[in-house]
């Protein structure tokens, strides 16, 4: 073992005493350190309490090891006894012990901290702060969206400025790497919808509508929204963490001083990659959702594969597929945009990176739902 346990440490010291008239001499022998600090201070205090002396001499001559914490504890005992009107002296200190005491500064022990710990604000102040924070956040997001739209427009007008390599890299990260989880979740969702609707529809003998329900729900709503939420969790958070860490490491400042538009350089490839890849992922999710329903349809409803697929295809219109793709592209833009924006908001430290990464995911999901609501109303009237 490299170190003695607390039990071992308690055996490493010995405290003895003798009372000469009204003077109590306490002899310290052995090792005194952090590990036995509590034990030996208690013992000395008990001794003083029992003997009730008028004067105490703590004799250091037998000490073989003393660390700074133990030295401090002995000063504290000395102070406490002096407060109790008992004169206490530390005697027979060797050079080593004197050395330790030379770096324990009395004024440091009593110094009031320069800064008080922050107290909890009143509820009203907290509420006001939160509202102001929301307003400021909204202004930040709007400014960022403006900047982003300008950069997107600029990139479309100057396609040579787009870093294709980066776009491909993020397409792989957000798209290809996300295929397994998107596929799995979609199959399960398809299974669940089919199973739940089958339980209800079988009561009225309308099992044949299960494929329609699954494909309708997947293509129109669940495909785009579930894919977007998964991508927000996977890639939105990754973008925020990546850019946030770059801010902390002053990499973003370095880009700016090199004359690069950091937003354009870091955000645009991610946004373009996401706008390309998320609609593809959505179509993929739709297929897997229908496949999930098919499993229930074929195994539980006695439908043939052919009937199930024909019924599904009949339900889905080209308009639905196109709007689903448009939705997916908009969601993609929102996820990438907010992910990057939150990353740029990081100022310092690991905690900030965590805070804004969480915020990126929460904000992205919120924006996805808001955008989806707008789509729902708008598409109703377009139709």
């Amino acid at each position, binding site marked *: *073992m*490299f*170190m003695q346990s*607390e039990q071992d440490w308690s055996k490493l010291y010995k405290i003895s005493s003798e009372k000469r008239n009204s003077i109590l001499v306490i002899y310290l022998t052995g090792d005194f*350190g*952090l*590990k036995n*600090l*509590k034990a030996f201070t208690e013992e000395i205090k008990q001794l003083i309490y029992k003997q009730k002396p008028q004067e105490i001499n703590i004799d250091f001559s037998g000490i073989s090891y003393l*660390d*700074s*914490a133990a030295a*401090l*504890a002995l000063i*504290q005992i000395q102070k406490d006894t002096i407060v109790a009107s008992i004169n206490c002296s530390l005697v027979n200190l060797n050079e*080593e012990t004197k*050395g*330790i005491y*030379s*770096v*324990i*500064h009395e*004024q*440091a*022990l009593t*110094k*009031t*901290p*320069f*800064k*008080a*710990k922050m107290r909890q604000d009143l509820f009203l102040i907290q509420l006001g702060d939160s509202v102001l924070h929301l307003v400021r956040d909204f202004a930040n997001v709007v400014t960022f969206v403006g900047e982003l739209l300008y950069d997107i427009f600029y990139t479309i007008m100057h396609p040579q400025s787009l870093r294709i390599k980066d776009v491909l890299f993020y397409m792989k990260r957000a798209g290809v790497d996300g295929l397994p989880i998107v596929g799995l979740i979609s199959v399960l969702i398809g299974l669940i919808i089919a199973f739940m609707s089958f339980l209800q529809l079988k009561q009225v003998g309308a099992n044949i509508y299960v494929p329609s329900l699954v494909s309708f729900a997947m293509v129109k709503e669940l495909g785009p929204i579930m894919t977007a939420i998964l991508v927000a969790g996977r890639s939105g958070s990754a973008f925020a963490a990546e850019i946030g860490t770059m801010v902390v490491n002053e990499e973003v400042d370095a880009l700016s001083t090199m004359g690069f538009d950091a937003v354009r350089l870091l955000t645009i490839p991610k946004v373009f990659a996401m706008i390309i890849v998320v609609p593809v992922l959505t179509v993929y999710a739709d297929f897997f959702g229908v496949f999930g329903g098919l499993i229930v349809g074929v195994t539980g409803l006695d439908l043939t594969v052919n009937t199930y697929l024909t019924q599904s295809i009949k339900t889905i219109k080209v308009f639905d597929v196109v709007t689903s793709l448009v939705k997916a592209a908009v969601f993609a833009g929102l996820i990438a945009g907010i992910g990057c924006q939150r990353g740029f908001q990081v100022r*310092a*430290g*690991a*905690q900030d990176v965590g805070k804004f990464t969480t915020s990126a995911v929460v904000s992205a999901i919120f924006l996805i739902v808001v955008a989806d609501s707008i789509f729902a109303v708008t598409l109703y009237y377009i139709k």
Partner: protein
Amino acid sequence: MQSPDNKPILVVENLAARFGSNIVFEGVNFQVNKGEILVVVGESGCGKSTLLKIMIGLQKPSSGRVMFRGRDIISASEEELNEYRQNIGVLFQSSALFSSMRLSDNIALPLQEYTNLDSATINMIIKMKLGMVNLAGYENHFPSELSGGMKKRAGIARAMALDPIVLFFDELSAGLDPVTAVELDDLIIKTNEALRTTMVIVTHELESICKIAHRVVMLDKTAKGIIAEGKPLDLKEKATDPRVRSFFLRQLPEVDSRSTSYGK
């Protein structure tokens, strides 16, 4: 400066570090004596940081042993290694203070984890440690509110929280202005003299080396091991190896620096 005892506290035996076919160093042998300030020097890429990481138990060597109080830390179990780590303190190059915690919480963390002390005693120890590094009164500050030199000192206070037997420093004064670097050197000397803490410092700041080191171990990239060991002044004045001489005289070996400059 007080001279240390000649009792070895840490012994490095036949240490080698290899990454694939790349040999960082081989056959490294030296010892760190009790109360000594040992400085490990060498050019960038010679394996100073790898050596430090091995000595603090963060990395396993390819072969060799590091003996602490007669026990090998390389073959030690994770539990034993954690015990070893309670006996050492490390100051990282970036100070590595926890940014989400106040200085007091940074220092309190090991005390709360490894001792049974009550919060009042821990607070007194925090105040004492901050006083030792001239940061009295800064307990409620966050690391982001401190300058580079103050962060280093706070890092030293945290490293000393458990009164370690050995303190390790990675690039002690890297990135600091000369005045702050000198202050830090003085703090190291004062701490070593007062507490007799053994110190292992990895650096290439020549002024620091000459001022604070009791002994120097010099690693070399091409030799893949130690090329010199001794007192800094002896190495500076008596070394015959051109690599050692060039390091201490701040010259490129066998090259007149002026002849290669543009301003000749």
